[in-house]
């Protein structure tokens, strides 16, 4: 192994920019570190070169531990994005610089730099200064300069990033050729997915300081594991549904889960559909992998192909993750391609030729304050995040006429240790929470305790009515041992059972399914059947569940009484969704429960399970 990294870590001001990166790169391999800007990929490269010190982990080059060695003694070649050709030296002198400081004779130096000038395709230009060379030529000199003293490994930091497209492709090809001829172990950093595909033997995808996936270009394209790799490498549609009885469900579409992939029952499941895996029919064929008939809403010409975006009717219990659908738009959007020579159809029946089930996502909680006081209830989210092994995203909403930076800074210092990410939006808090949960994917939105007056405000009611993600209200409890599931009208619905069951399963809690009846007589048979079905669903989540029928004057009273008597740690209720059932002059049942339950209440929108 030429390069071995073990748990390499770097922190800036307490924040990890590179976190525990471990990697082995074989002799002669061209390894590409791919990631967005600021992902920490360049820092990894600089640590290998010794230009940045590491805060943890180990670096081995050719079997030698170089973790604490100075850059001069590591024997690496480094090429920078800005070329960094020494301005006062000719190209030949630049190339010979490494030999000069090693005390190699002038004659030998000259011979070597001429050899290298030929290798990089600059024969005869040795006497030119940097200002007399184009960007591409300067980068060739930089490459030759890094090769002259025969380094053990070659490291390149976005080497083609400053060049225009045509030069870039040329230089990329000749670089790959040179690298293969010399069989020199190389690490190249880039944010350009196309570049990575073209030259890499293997690609490592870096996201927020972590190396999340490593593989050959084809493997990563066809079978990525993570959502990030799936969307970063190439186009495609990602949908999220839930697992049910060992299958992944996306509305009417039910797909088998691949063997060997761990998915908990009831947990969210994501599939990636590459554009070329989408088959466009004329509406006649009816297959079980059909997604429905969609309208072409966008078509762009891309050479031999035409890229399409097709809107299909909204699939129940399915969320769009990529491409993102703007808030307020109905339906799902699917990316597809077709030969450019054919006419673009207005409508098409969409069937899937293939797909990839992504790894089970880690649950994520959005923590935000729907009131203008801007105190996200991270306290309330912490025990739940720990129990679910969920990540916490804190949302700050600043007023339109105020700069967002002071708030961002405050949230950062307050919640640095708890939050995995801090996001900012501008506008009215409750409205922005609604937009945020609609545009990204969260399993729960934690809103914390809200007073009776604030909860009746127009915006919070709007949030309650239009949320597509379960909302958690109230002070949190340290443990979630007992969960009560019911709806505002007194009987458990499908979504609340699924969401509640999934939560209880992950938290290891017992569940009671509640039905409230107005009179003392035995409830009708269909109610019993409905409850039994619920218990059966819950047992599929590996949750211990029982059904309970309580008699009360109203569902509200029944739910509150049961919650108090059983001292439940969480009450799960369904929301009405957009159809409001409140009687004029009186409050919505949901709001009354939120006011009076005196314990955490999870409001589950109808379609979120």
């Amino acid at each position: 192994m030429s390069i071995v990294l073990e748990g390499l870590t770097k922190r800036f001001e307490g924040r990890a920019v590179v976190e525990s990166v471990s990697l082995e790169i074989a002799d002669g391999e061209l390894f590409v570190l791919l990631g967005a800007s600021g992902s920490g990929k360049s820092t990894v490269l600089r640590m290998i070169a010794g230009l940045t010190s590491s805060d943890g982990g180990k670096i081995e080059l050719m079997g030698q531990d170089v973790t604490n060695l100075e850059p001069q003694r590591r024997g690496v070649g480094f090429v920078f994005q800005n070329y960094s050709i020494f301005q006062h030296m000719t190209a030949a002198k630049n190339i010979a610089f490494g030999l000069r400081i090693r005390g190699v004779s002038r004659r030998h130096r000259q011979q070597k730099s001429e050899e290298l000038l030929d290798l990089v395709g600059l024969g005869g230009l040795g006497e030119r200064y940097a200002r007399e060379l184009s960007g591409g030529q300067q980068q060739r000199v930089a490459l030759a300069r890094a090769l002259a003293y025969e380094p053990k490994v070659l490291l390149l930091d976005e080497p083609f990033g400053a060049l225009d497209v045509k030069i870039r492709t040329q230089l990329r090809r000749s670089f790959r050729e040179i690298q293969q001829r010399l069989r020199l172990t190389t690490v190249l950093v880039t944010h350009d997915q196309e570049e990575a595909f073209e030259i890499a033997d293997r690609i490592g995808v870096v996201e927020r300081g972590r190396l999340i996936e490593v593989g050959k270009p084809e493997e990563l394209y066809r079978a990525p594991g993570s959502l990030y790799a799936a969307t970063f490498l190439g186009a495609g549609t990602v949908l999220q549904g839930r697992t049910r009885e060992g299958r992944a469900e996306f509305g009417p579409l039910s797909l088998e889960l691949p063997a060997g992939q761990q998915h908990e029952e009831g947990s969210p499941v994501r599939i990636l559909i590459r554009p070329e895996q989408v088959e466009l029919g004329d509406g006649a064929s009816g297959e079980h992998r059909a997604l429905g008939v969609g309208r072409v809403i966008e078509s762009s010409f891309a050479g031999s192909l035409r890229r399409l975006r097709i809107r299909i009717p909204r699939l129940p219990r399915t969320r769009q993750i990529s491409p993102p659908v703007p808030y307020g738009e109905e339906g799902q959007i699917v990316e597809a391609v077709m030969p450019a020579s054919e006419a673009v159809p207005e409508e098409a029946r969409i069937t899937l030729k293939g797909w990839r089930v992504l790894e089970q996502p880690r649950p994520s909680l959005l923590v935000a304050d729907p009131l203008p006081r801007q105190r996200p209830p991270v306290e309330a989210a912490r025990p739940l995040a720990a129990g679910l092994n969920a990540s916490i995203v804190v949302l700050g909403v600043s007023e339109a006429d105020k700069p967002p930076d002071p708030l961002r800074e405050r949230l950062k210092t307050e919640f640095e240790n708890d939050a995995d990410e801090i996001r900012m939006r501008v506008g009215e808090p409750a409205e922005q929470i609604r937009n945020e949960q609609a545009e990204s994917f969260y399993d729960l939105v934690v809103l914390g305790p809200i007073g009776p007056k604030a909860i009746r405000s127009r915006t919070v009611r709007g949030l309650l009515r239009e949320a597509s993600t379960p909302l958690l209200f109230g002070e949190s409890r340290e443990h979630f041992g007992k969960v009560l599931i019911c709806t505002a009208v007194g009987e458990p619905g499908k979504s609340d059972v699924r969401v509640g069951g999934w939560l209880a399963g992950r938290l290891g809690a017992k569940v009671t399914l509640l039905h409230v009846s107005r009179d003392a007589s035995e409830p009708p048979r269909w109610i019993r059947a409905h409850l039994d079905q619920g218990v059966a669903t819950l047992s599929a989540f590996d949750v211990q569940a029982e059904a309970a029928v309580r008699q009360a004057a109203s569902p509200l009273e029944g739910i509150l009484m049961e919650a108090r008597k059983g001292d439940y740690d969480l009450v799960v209720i369904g929301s009405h969704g957009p159809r409001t059932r409140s009687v004029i002059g009186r409050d919505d049942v949901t709001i009354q429960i939120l006011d009076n339950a005196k314990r955490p209440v999870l409001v589950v929108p109808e379609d979120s399970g």
Partner: protein
Amino acid sequence: MTSPGAMGGRVGRGSSRLPVSVLLLVLLPLLLMPLAAVFVFALKGGPSAFWDAIRSPEAQFALRFSLLIAFATTAVNAVLGTFTAYVLSKHRFPGDRALGVVVNLPVAIPTVVVGTSLLLLWGPIGLLGKVLVPLGLQPMFRPFGVLLAHLFVTFPYMLGAVKPVLDELETTYEEAAYTIGASRWTTFRLVLLPALRGGLITGALLTFAHSLGEFGATVMVSGNLRLKTQTAPLYIFAQFEAGDIAHANALAAVLALLSFAIFFFLFQYAGGTARRAR
């Protein structure tokens, strides 16, 4: 009529020359006439009188002493200023910004105040002087004292010329040299120093010119001792006060010529680098 565009944006022939005339009228008594006056008076008694005035032992000493001090000041501050620029540009440490302000202060402080503070530090009754003078170490009223004053007063010029160049120079040049295998010192010598050449030359010339003309601090710390610590500007002032205007003028003309030469070179050089940069 020519269009303004054809004249490269300048106002052409047909338009009023009033602004140009006004400018010349203001500058004539302000800048140009005083400069001319020095030479007119210097040559008033004819070349031989001028020559005699220059050849007097006091004048000779003053001129040589001034040149010596200017060279020494330039040499010391070239090293010290470049080093300071390097440290301030490449290293982050607590108080680095405060230090950046402090090292530039000498430009803002009146030179007479500098002289006074040096006396209050090194002089016979000064903070350090109290201890050093009984030991026979007394820099004030000696050539070394003049050098100290000049180092102080001209310190910011070298720094000011070199630091911006260093700041602009991307660290990747040094880093490239490091990965290639060059030590810090080799990198400084072979990579940074050549890149700083322009700044070094500009800084050195500015330092030299200012040292040559320094008056306020020098008059305080030198004691103005003839043939011992009297620099050319002090000599000119002393002769003028004694009513020997011819002697004063002769040396003044020489100093002015030297300054012209330096600035002519600076202008040429600055123009040259600007052209090359384009």
